[in-house]
């Protein structure tokens, strides 16, 4: 493990990753859409992983990639899919002036932390982890040594925490069935007694000039039927217009 505290390569890595991670953080806070926020956060997580590795913590860097960008971000995206991707924030402030106050307070935290930490930490050289890692032959081995000796109790408690979290998620996400599940017979009866046509809807493009999915099927009298277009396209207004000339041409072709 190369661990030189002052190293130009490390400085380059630091400045690139620092800029990227701050950019990701700002993007996370400012994106209107939650999915974009998640993408920005993935950027931050990956640059932080690189920073961990350049900070003599290769194990934590790998765990960061696997646990955070792999598992946690995937969970976030799954939940975004459940909750609705288009669930963007409203811009109406419920508390007047909350946004500016929050930004001001955030700047205050930046000033306090950077000033306090910067002045107290400036000029302290890094000891480096070479000596700490040397006895066990590497960072992973040294961490394993610590986990299974000094931190064994914490590690065991952690397993209890993980099991509790898994149980909690199962209990919270479990949905109780208040009425029995409808049988196939009931479903079928409901379908035939309902107002909607029980059979297949006409396919798009039948008796039309194109078979594209946005081209409505034509009824025998030549009028287009919106039923043949998938609902989302109809809602978006993406139904292709039917040219009356085309209908006449089809009629002529049929009469020949």
């Amino acid at each position, binding site marked *: 493990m190369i661990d030189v505290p002052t190293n130009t390569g490390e400085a380059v890595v630091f400045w690139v990753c620092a800029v990227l991670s701050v950019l990701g953080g700002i993007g996370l806070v400012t994106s209107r859409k939650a999915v974009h926020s998640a993408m920005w956060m993935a950027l*931050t997580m990956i640059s932080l992983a690189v920073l961990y590795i350049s900070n003599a913590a290769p194990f*934590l860097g790998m765990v960061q990639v696997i646990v955070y960008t792999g598992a946690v971000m995937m*969970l976030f995206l799954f939940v975004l899919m459940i909750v609705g991707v288009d669930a963007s924030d409203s811009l109406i402030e*419920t508390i007047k002036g909350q*946004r500016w106050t929050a930004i001001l307070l*955030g700047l205050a935290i930046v000033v306090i932390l950077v000033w306090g930490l910067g002045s107290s930490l400036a000029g302290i050289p890094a000891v480096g*982890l070479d000596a700490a890692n040397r006895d066990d032959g590497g960072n992973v081995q040294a961490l394993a040594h610590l986990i299974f000796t000094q931190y064994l109790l914490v590690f065991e408690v952690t397993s209890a925490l993980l099991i509790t*979290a898994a149980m909690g998620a199962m209990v919270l996400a479990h*949905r109780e069935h208040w009425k029995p599940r409808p049988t196939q017979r009931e479903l079928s009866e409901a379908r035939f007694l309902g107002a909607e046509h029980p059979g297949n809807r006409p396919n798009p493009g039948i008796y039309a000039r194109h078979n594209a999915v946005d081209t409505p099927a034509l009824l025998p009298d030549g009028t287009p039927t919106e039923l043949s277009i998938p609902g989302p396209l109809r809602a978006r207004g993406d139904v292709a217009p039917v040219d009356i000339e085309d209908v006449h041409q089809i009629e002529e072709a049929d009469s020949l």
Partner: protein
Amino acid sequence: MNPSNYIILSALLFSIGTVGVLVRRNAIVVFMSVELMLNASNLAFVAFARMHGNLDGQMVAFFVMVVAAAEVVVGLAIIVTIFRSRRSASIDEPNLLKY
């Protein structure tokens, strides 16, 4: 390259996360901002471990990650549960809790 740069970067990220928690209304984005704050503190722990030549900082960061993973699981389950009953992921919606 002064190692305190890492600490200052982590302070910056932490503040950005704080602003995100205060400003955003979507519960999932608020949650992601909390994750950003946890990650910023992890970066500080890793940098401190290197500054002091002691692996305890890395151990703390490791356990923070484990706790954060558990927290994400439970927190997202709560968000999904609230969304099911109220059809909304906005954190202003559950204000009925105060009555």
